[in-house]
């Protein structure tokens, strides 16, 4: 069985502090849904209100259409995978996995059988009699998943379960998690601050900041069509130019910036005079080709630093000496060595690739910091 989850105008307050505000989300049955946001944005709080450790101060949480008010975590059709996994250290691996069955009074033989089946599923056969501390980090991770699945939940909740693993293992577990979700077919709600995890695994993502859900959409939507300054700056790297909207032309806005007028899409329907920011992804900034038409947005810039990232090269360009509007530019690494230092070059981007969004809080990390 699987179930949908509905957050209906959920507010969660701790005293005067609002941890989550006005959350309205319908997570579909069988969906892999992620909450993505920096630490302290309220995503774990929302998850705890779904698992039943917290009651919303206002609003309703519905699982499978049923209001969960007053129903404790041990009575909800959810299973939670904790950030620190919370495997029981004094129990053997198979006892950990079969704990949910033990609670239901299943016979020992049957518990063992079910645990062995799940050990098979997570590719750890014959490890049931080990103690948890004898397993490696990745193995523990999988045991935690098996233990949650043994409860046969309608909804699986995952609270940053990969954050303790090293990079390679993390990437491997992404694929693994996605495969497990497709195999068992239940709803997954995934909490993460890692945009890579959210983008690669999720059907849909909710970007959160300061207790507020900024945008809900597919990974493609959020990366290409951000709806707020925060969503644009938190997911992926981005260049930002602040200014005032000077003119509008069907769906596009011209922003007056210290670098001159820049033009980009205007999805929010900003009016002239509005304080706004123009965002452009580094991979959409190119060197101008003198033999072709100039870009809609073009500027002179000097190379400040070159970072080799592997598949691409991140070029940090200075657009003017003191305007604090650096631009980073991603160039596919073709193996040729570029020597630009000190030389000015024309760089630019199209109006379609840029987006103008109302001025707002931007993420502390990402392109901003990297480009300074």
């Amino acid at each position, binding site marked *: 069985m699987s179930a949908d989850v509905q957050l209906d105008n959920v507010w969660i307050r701790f005293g005067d502090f609002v941890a989550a505000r006005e959350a309205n989300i319908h997570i579909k049955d069988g969906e892999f849904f992620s909450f993505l946001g920096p630490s302290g944005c309220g995503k774990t709080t929302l998850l705890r209100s779904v*698992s*039943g*450790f917290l009651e919303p101060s206002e609003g309703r949480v519905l699982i499978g259409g049923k209001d969960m008010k007053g129903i*404790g*975590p*041990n*009575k909800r059709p*959810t*299973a*939670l995978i*904790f950030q*620190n996994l*919370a*495997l*029981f*250290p*004094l129990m053997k691996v198979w006892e950990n996995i079969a*704990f*949910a069955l*033990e*609670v*239901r009074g299943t016979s020992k033989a049957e518990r063992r059988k079910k645990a062995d089946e799940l050990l098979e599923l997570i590719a750890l056969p014959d490890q049931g009699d080990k103690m948890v501390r004898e397993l490696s980090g990745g193995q523990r991770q999988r045991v935690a998943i098996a*233990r*949650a699945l043994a*409860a046969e939940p309608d909804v699986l909740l995952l609270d940053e379960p990969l954050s303790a693993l090293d990079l390679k293992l993390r990437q491997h577990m992404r694929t693994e998690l996605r495969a497990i979700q497709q195999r068992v077919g239940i709803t997954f709600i995934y909490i993460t601050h890692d945009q890579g995890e959210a983008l690669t695994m999720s059907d849909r993502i909710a970007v959160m900041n300061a207790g507020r859900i900024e945008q809900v959409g597919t990974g493609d939507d959020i990366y290409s069509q951000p709806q707020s300054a925060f969503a644009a700056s938190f997911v992926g790297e981005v260049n930002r130019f602040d200014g005032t909207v000077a003119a509008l032309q069907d769906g596009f806005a011209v922003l007056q910036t210290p670098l001159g007028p820049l033009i980009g899409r205007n999805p929010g329907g900003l009016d002239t005079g509005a304080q706004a920011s123009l965002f452009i992804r580094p991979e959409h900034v190119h060197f101008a080709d003198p033999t072709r038409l100039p870009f809609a947005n073009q500027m002179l810039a000097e190379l400040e630093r070159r970072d080799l990232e592997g598949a691409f090269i991140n070029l940090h360009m200075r657009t003017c000496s003191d305007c604090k509007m650096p631009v980073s530019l991603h160039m596919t690494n073709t193996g040729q060595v570029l020597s630009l230092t000190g030389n000015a070059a024309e760089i630019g981007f199209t109006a379609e690739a840029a987006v103008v969004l109302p001025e707002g809080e931007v993420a502390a990390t990402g392109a901003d910091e990297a480009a300074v």
Partner: protein
Amino acid sequence: MTSSRLLNLYTWAFLAFMFAPLVLLIVSSFNDTSPPSVTPWEGFTGKWYAFFWMSDADLRADPVLRLLDRDRLVGCFQNSLFISSMVVPISLLLGLSGAVVLTRLKSRLNGVLWWVLLSPMLAPGVVLGLSALVFWGRVGVHAGLTTIIIAQVTFIASYALLILMARLQRQPVELEEAALDLGASPFRVFRRITLPFLFPALVSAAIIAFMASMENYNTTMFAKGGACNFATELGAMSRNPNGHPPVINAVGTVIIVLTVAAASLHTFLQRRETR
């Protein structure tokens, strides 16, 4: 260089200060002289120990031992065992409840509660004993073993509270939450997750509570009324006008041996739990 030598000197002086009297106590418990002394050495004897099991005839033959009331001493010792057999479980239960409340229920009153629960440990033992005597006397409970048990529990429960709390604070709350999330009732979570984790701390707390109950003198002294326990009886014996009999040194030696053994066991258990 000099400072480390100074520290060495200090450490040895401190250890000598701590243990030299104990060495004298042990040595004199084997010297055939009363009141107990190390010098002059009158010859090796085990009779201060044998006092507890020698025949009545042998007992009457000894000029020192025949003045002592062996049956009463043994009776008081049995009282001590009975008292601690009540004090230990009650203290563990109270300490455990307090520890769970203080570490698991986040209440604004926790700060106040913490001081209230620990205050008996800080209060002078005399005050505890006296107040138990006066209060329970008013209520109508006669001073005796019951008041000794009540008075001892008031402060020994705080020891248990401290030990169990330290352990509970180290158990991640997530373990209990995970069990709850997997469908366990709060009672089952406690029995299956919290209690097994607490087990080594419960053993430590029981040992410490037992020793505290056995050796307590001042609180017991005021709460005892007409009853006695081992500590108060040894106290009474040591006020003997002929100097205190070396039997007390023999008892002291046994207690030292038992204490060292218990402390070693405690350390061993703690080692094992941090493994």
